[in-house]
């Protein structure tokens, strides 16, 4: 099972839902996991291998730290390649962010100034990663909270240039766009309209939470997808056509059936777009 139908929505796979997820026979249902949780031996890896026999998988990394001013960790890359060889994922993706620095891992997706120096470093790091993995990866647009100085590049131009230099593809997280637009004060619809359609290999949808004290939206993945995000998603798919779309949920985990119902909304949007002439 190593192919994802572009007209199909998937779910983030959580251990709590493993049995139901494995047995689920919804057509074209695929799952996404963080590879860092499976770059070990033991039962977890065995679970994922059983899942890969029945469902297409996507590996969505959080720790390659492509925006750190250092090459990606060679051991981490070898472990990732080994996992890829064992479960043959249809998609492999990472974030436009950094998390590992000077031998320590800080579990978040940290920001950086989009400078010319950063562009060169990240471009080199993506190329090294793709060489090490023997395949192309997709890069996800981050959520923003801070007004950062020192940008030489607009984010979309930066991502487009990375695609041009490395032949990577892009993972467009619509919730990240909505959250960032609120926090930094830009127009989410305009951002989506400028995003390079041809480069998009996957779309993410998730819920957010509100930090009223700081007037921020937080990309927390702990709630149902909000209506404004659905609206942006429909607008996006109308423009670019169907793309594999993932429903992410990490906190306040509902019943598996509830996630399937949310997935069905995305599936219907994709099917409508796929049916258009």
């Amino acid at each position, binding site marked *: 099972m190593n192919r994802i139908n572009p007209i199909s929505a998937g779910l983030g796979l959580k251990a709590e839902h493993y049995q139901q997820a494995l047995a689920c026979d919804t057509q074209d249902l695929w799952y996404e996991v963080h590879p860092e949780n499976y770059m070990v*031996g*033991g039962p977890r890896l065995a679970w994922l291998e059983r899942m890969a026999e029945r469902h297409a998988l996507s590996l969505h990394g959080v720790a390659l730290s492509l925006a750190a001013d250092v090459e990606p960790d060679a051991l981490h890359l070898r472990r990732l390649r080994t996992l890829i060889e064992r479960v043959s994922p249809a998609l492999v993706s990472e974030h436009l962010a950094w998390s590992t620095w000077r031998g320590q891992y800080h579990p978040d997706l*940290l920001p950086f100034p989009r400078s010319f120096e950063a562009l060169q470093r990240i471009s080199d790091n993506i190329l090294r990663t793709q060489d090490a993995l023997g395949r192309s990866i997709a890069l996800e647009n981050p959520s923003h909270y801070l007004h950062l100085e020192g940008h030489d590049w607009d984010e979309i131009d930066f991502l487009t240039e990375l695609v041009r230099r490395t032949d990577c593809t892009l993972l467009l997280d619509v919730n990240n766009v909505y959250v960032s637009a609120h926090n930094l004060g830009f127009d989410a619809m305009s951002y989506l309209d400028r995003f390079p359609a041809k480069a998009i290999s996957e779309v993410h949808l998730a819920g957010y939470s509100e930090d009223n004290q700081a007037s921020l939206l937080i990309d927390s993945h702990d709630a149902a997808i909000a209506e404004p995000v659905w609206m942006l998603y429909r607008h996006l798919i109308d423009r670019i056509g169907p793309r594999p779309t993932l429903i992410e949920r990490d906190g306040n985990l509902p019943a598996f059936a509830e996630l399937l119902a949310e997935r069905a909304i995305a599936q219907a949007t994709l099917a409508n777009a796929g049916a258009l002439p």
Partner: protein
Amino acid sequence: MNLSLGQFQDAFIEALYQRPVSALASLSGQAAFAVYRNTVMSGCVEALRANFPSIETLVGPGWLHEVASAYVQQTPPKDPRLIHYGAAFPDFLQTLQASHDLPYLADVARLDGYWCEVFSADEDPWLTLDDLTGMTATDLARGHLRPRRSVRWQWFDPHPAYSLWRVSREGLPWSPEQPWVAEGALLSGDSHGVNHQPLDIGACAFLDACAAGHSLQVASQLAQQCQPDLDFSDLLGRLLQTKVFRPLTFA
């Protein structure tokens, strides 16, 4: 801001852990900077809570959160595979004994740590009773039994650390009839999960000797010296059933 990418990242980490840094004052002064501080801290603390569930049962979530936060400040993760985070947490708890007054807490934490190691270990081939069929006692005596990478054991003196760990981890009540005596524990993992059982002091000595590279004959002698009444045949049968050893070698 006129920092190179590396300088920015050095300064960001200093600000993240609330250490004095002037280079990013305009950034770390924004209320939004707390989002990163909170996410990193809660990611690490949640990893410790997940890896050491027995400790939370014994000391409560409030105390654990406070102690885990202090541990994160002192020892951030090195490995993004967070199931490996907290290798030094049991020793950290040991240094705090005056504040928790639970002399067994660090040993219970060691067992939680062993569970994570066993759960995530690479799987080795294992020795079965059938593999020994046809071998003479002399051959067997000079063979070497090496524990698999997915096996951990330890003797805990003077408290019943294994029983304390088991009831804490499984949410069971502590029986007043449980004798307060030293205990050993064996944890063994495979692709189906983690098994655990109590272990005698002689059995722990036997596994220590096997891991140190002694022959089966020497290891069994050391075990018998440690525990003269040890039923060695029964022990070996149980260990083989639990898939404790790699295939026999004679090197």
